[in-house]
């Protein structure tokens, strides 16, 4: 990468937070390429996520936002390109690899199991067992304990309309399901939380709660990747904004250097970042 490329790619860093960007990125991708048959999903995308920042990813439908985060979280294995965490190369083959590395994801299709109850969904693939031989020998799940802690996680998100953790997820409304998926990521993410359109199905109040949660995660030192079509939300919470266009990265801007109109213009190709920044 040449120096001018870098200038094009980074529309600066948020003022007052320069120290964050002197650190090593917690998650970094270089030249990610993935194709689906003849469809090019990602055409050489770079991404840097620094500790304690909220990186928004915006782009038109089909720009490759979901594909990008799926490559970062082990749901897809890219055809080529490298991914590093804190400078170390990582090769996620499955979502649980990324999860074990501290990356929690709310996928666009939510990835909740309708027939299972809320608590089972929150603890899916990280179940807790009973203490003593019941757990160690007979592998018995600690259903009560998980239900109680699941209730706390959902409560933390402030979604009070969900009362009963033993309720099957299929009986929830679309927004409530989304809340469950977000609560799961927020409760278990230890380094990175990736949210693919987490507020798409949420009401005004609930959306606000998710945005608050994003800020809380950042304040705890976690990094968040937030995909959203809601520009006011993005400009409210993001430290930097990665603009995805036609399977590639059109650029990265900050809410200070560029306003929403400019961001959308870059996103749609009406404006090129090299001219405008």
């Amino acid at each position, binding site marked *: 990468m040449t120096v001018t490329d870098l200038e094009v790619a980074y529309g600066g860093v948020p003022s007052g937070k320069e120290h964050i960007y002197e650190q090593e990125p917690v998650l970094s991708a270089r030249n990610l390429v993935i194709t689906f048959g003849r469809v090019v999903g990602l055409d050489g995308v770079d991404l840097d996520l620094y500790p304690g920042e909220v990186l928004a990813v915006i782009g038109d439908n089909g720009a490759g936002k979901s594909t990008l985060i799926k490559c970062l979280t082990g*749901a897809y294995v890219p055809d080529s390109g490298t991914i590093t965490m804190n400078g170390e190369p990582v090769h996620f083959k499955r979502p649980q690899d990324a999860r074990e590395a501290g990356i929690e994801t709310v996928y666009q299709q939510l*990835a909740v199991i309708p027939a299972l109850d809320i608590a089972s969904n929150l603890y899916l693939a990280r179940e807790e067992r009973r203490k003593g031989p019941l757990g160690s020998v007979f592998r018995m799940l600690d259903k009560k304990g998980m239900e109680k802690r699941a209730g706390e996680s959902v409560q933390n998100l402030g979604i009070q309309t969900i009362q009963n953790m033993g309720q099957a997820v299929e009986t929830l409304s679309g927004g409530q399901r989304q809340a469950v998926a977000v609560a799961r990521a927020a409760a278990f993410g230890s380094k990175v939380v990736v949210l693919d359109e987490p507020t798409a199905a949420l009401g005004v109040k609930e959306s606000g709660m998710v945005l608050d949660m994003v800020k809380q995660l950042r304040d705890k030192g976690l990094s968040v990747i937030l995909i959203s079509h809601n520009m006011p939300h993005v400009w409210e919470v993001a430290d930097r904004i990665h603009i995805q266009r036609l399977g590639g990265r059109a650029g990265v801007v900050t809410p200070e250097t560029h306003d929403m109109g400019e961001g959308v213009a870059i996103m749609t190709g009406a404006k090129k970042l090299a001219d405008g920044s």
Partner: protein
Amino acid sequence: MSADVSSAAAEFARRQQSPVQRLQHQLHGKPWLSPLFLLLVAFIAFFISTPTFLTANSMGILLQQTAVVAALAVGQTLVILTAGIDLSCGAIMVLSMMVMASLSKDDGMPSLIGLLLGVLLATGAGLLNGFLVTRINLPPFIVTLGTLSIFTAIALLYSGGSSIQADRLPDLLNFLGKGFGIGQFRLTWGIVVVILIYAVMAYVLSQTAWGRYVYAVGDDAESARLSGVPSKRILLAVYTVAGLIYGIAAWILIGRAGAATPNAIPDANLASITAVVIGGTSLFGGRGRLIGTLIGALIVQTFAFGLSQLGVDQQWRVLATGILVIVAVAIDQWIRKVKS
């Protein structure tokens, strides 16, 4: 949201429901309720029409007749819960039975080793099904349709199509046909083993993480994968455990039939699927309980046994079973509509 708003919402939800909708909701949560009801109706009907039906003696016979299909149906339930189907279960059982019998007949091999090798073979056959489903990505229907023919043919070739009678077999292989009486009520060890299999697998399905994964994979395989469930490993394990259970069913079958016969239960494959489906487990996966399967197996046998006691032609039993299956799947479809 404040408390009175949410209670108003609950009130709203309550008022919306007609009794039929409430029933639908109940069945949605407890899909084995309708088969249990059917079983009770069948019992009462046969009790009224045939005085000998509800005697300790007949009940013992009914259980013995149910045992083999009930055992097979445990494996079948596991597979169907993952949205698969196993057409080869009866064939695996018969192959396993012929192998364990041949190996240990006429004081050939130590009976325990013969038995274990037979069960191991069935486990391997299940593993092969699982391998073809998960690694070659073939639909379970196609895989097990193929292995049904393959295992059936091997069993016939291996045994030369002839049976091995109980008197040529060691005690261990005949053991599950023996039993004990509680008054008039005779239980075989085979029935005891079946009850144990149900208890263990019901525990595994409802109380362990593995059991949850089985439901998760069956309900939505891609979401399960994205949530971190090792979907392929679970599927492979399900087919393998099913094979193991078919191997144990082979042992039960020798005791029940009093011989190892290649064509002991020709309709075992379909009977096991019938029991699972009537028991309220959804063919679309992710929904069902093992207790339902046990009830389903009992229903099929109760109809068969009751109607034969009434002296009804065997074809009417087959016809009744067919109707039961269709009604059961129709009820399942209706229950699933609750979602939308």
